[in-house]
């Protein structure tokens, strides 16, 4: 029978440092996937996985044995990744990282028309182009928006989980997700819904009452 995570944690806390290996081997792959979705870079993600485990080890006393270890570890990974993205953003502020225009509404004649019918080489090319645009648009989000959006949209985490992981109020977590989607719409809707501009874009992004 497999030893539970809580039992392994207790073993480590009792002084058996090498027992921590079981936790690393059990969870490193899933943490890697989570971190990769947020950073989009393999090498950065591998280093963040190591740092997540180091941080977990250092604060293992604060882990409550009745809690779920993978959820706790996930929160550490998200926080560490957020710190990393914030630091990277500061480094990159002077660089023009992404090539998507600030206002794609003005990119007339440059819109990608995605045909609805069968896939072919053209469609595959367009799909690759779309992926590039999505990656670029995600790159324009603030670190907190990116992490909140990834958690909600890609990982299917609840707003409560996001607020706990990022130490935000529920309303702030909702707002982060909303602001992320709003920015993505601004960048991507000209390509995903060509010819039918959003009423929010038309009216300067304000809600209609």
């Amino acid at each position, binding site marked *: 029978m497999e030893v539970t995570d809580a039992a392994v944690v207790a073993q*480590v*806390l*009792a*002084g*058996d*440092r*090498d027992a*921590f*290996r079981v936790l*690393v*081997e059990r969870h*490193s*792959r899933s943490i*890697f*996937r989570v971190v*990769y*979705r947020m950073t*989009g870079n*393999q090498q950065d*993600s*591998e280093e963040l*996985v*190591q740092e997540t*485990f*180091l941080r977990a*080890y*250092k604060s*293992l006393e604060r882990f409550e044995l009745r809690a779920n270890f993978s959820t706790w570890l996930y929160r550490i990974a998200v926080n560490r990744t957020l710190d990393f993205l914030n630091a990277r953003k500061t480094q990159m502020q002077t660089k023009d990282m992404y090539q998507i225009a600030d206002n794609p509404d003005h990119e007339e004649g440059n819109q990608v028309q995605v045909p609805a019918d069968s896939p072919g080489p053209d469609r595959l090319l367009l799909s690759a182009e*779309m992926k590039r645009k*999505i990656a670029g648009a995600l790159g324009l989000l603030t670190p907190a928006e990116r992490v909140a959006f990834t958690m*909600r*949209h*890609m*990982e299917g985490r609840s*707003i409560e989980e996001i607020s706990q992981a990022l130490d935000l109020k529920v309303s702030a977590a*909702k*707002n982060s*997700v*909303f602001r992320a*989607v*709003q920015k*993505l*719409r601004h960048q*991507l*809707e000209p390509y*995903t*819904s060509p010819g*039918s501009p*959003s*009423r*929010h874009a038309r009216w300067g*992004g304000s*809600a*209609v*009452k």
Partner: protein
Amino acid sequence: MNHLSEEQIVLHYYGDAEEAAEVERHLAACVECRAEFARVQSMLRQIEPLEAPEPLPGFEQKTWLNVRDRLPDKGGFFRRLLGPQQKWIFAGVMALLLAAAFMAGRFWPRPEQPLARKAEPVNSQRVVLVAVGDHLERSQMLLVEIMNADAKGPIDLSSEQAEARDLLDSNHLYRVSAQQAGDPQVAPLLDQLGRVLAEIANGPSEVSPQDLQQVRHSIQSEGLLFKVRVVGSEVNSRARRPEPVSGGNVNQRL
């Protein structure tokens, strides 16, 4: 009629809008909001989860080896002995003892210190330098042995592993000291050396030529052997440098 706000529409897509039933009723009745919702839906559906590449085989093992060498010691004797409540009491007692020692030191009559004792910190620095120099020399010999091992058929690395394990423990101590001393040269080198020593110490004792090649690749990466030689000789020459006559430079780098 009031339309739904953009926030309500976006949050409704994820099922997070407040008064969801009301939003639902509005969408059923309002063509404009329905069209807006469809646009949001169409855009978000195109954003698929980013597929993470599958990490290389042995990813877990590599992660562990890198983490292991950096883990601080946990669960020392006192830590295991004391629960969270007792820890505070223990801390209080220690603080009282410290205060008592400080007061005793202030008011206790002190004999004159001989001048020669002032040079003691410099001597202890020198001892550490000599030990680090010796450590780097031993590490260099081990790395050279592995680089020159005959790579035909299965290779027995058990003696090299024992040596690597031995070096790994002292490497950890020296690395921590070098980090605390803020040594920009020795600390990163010991960090890099620790990873390679961990790889040797934790690998199988009998390796194939391919495995040996991988270990050699780790040694060669970032010029580890060269750095060990250069820094080792620099540390040895620092250890041999004549001491200042009085006072000394206590903050001398490791």
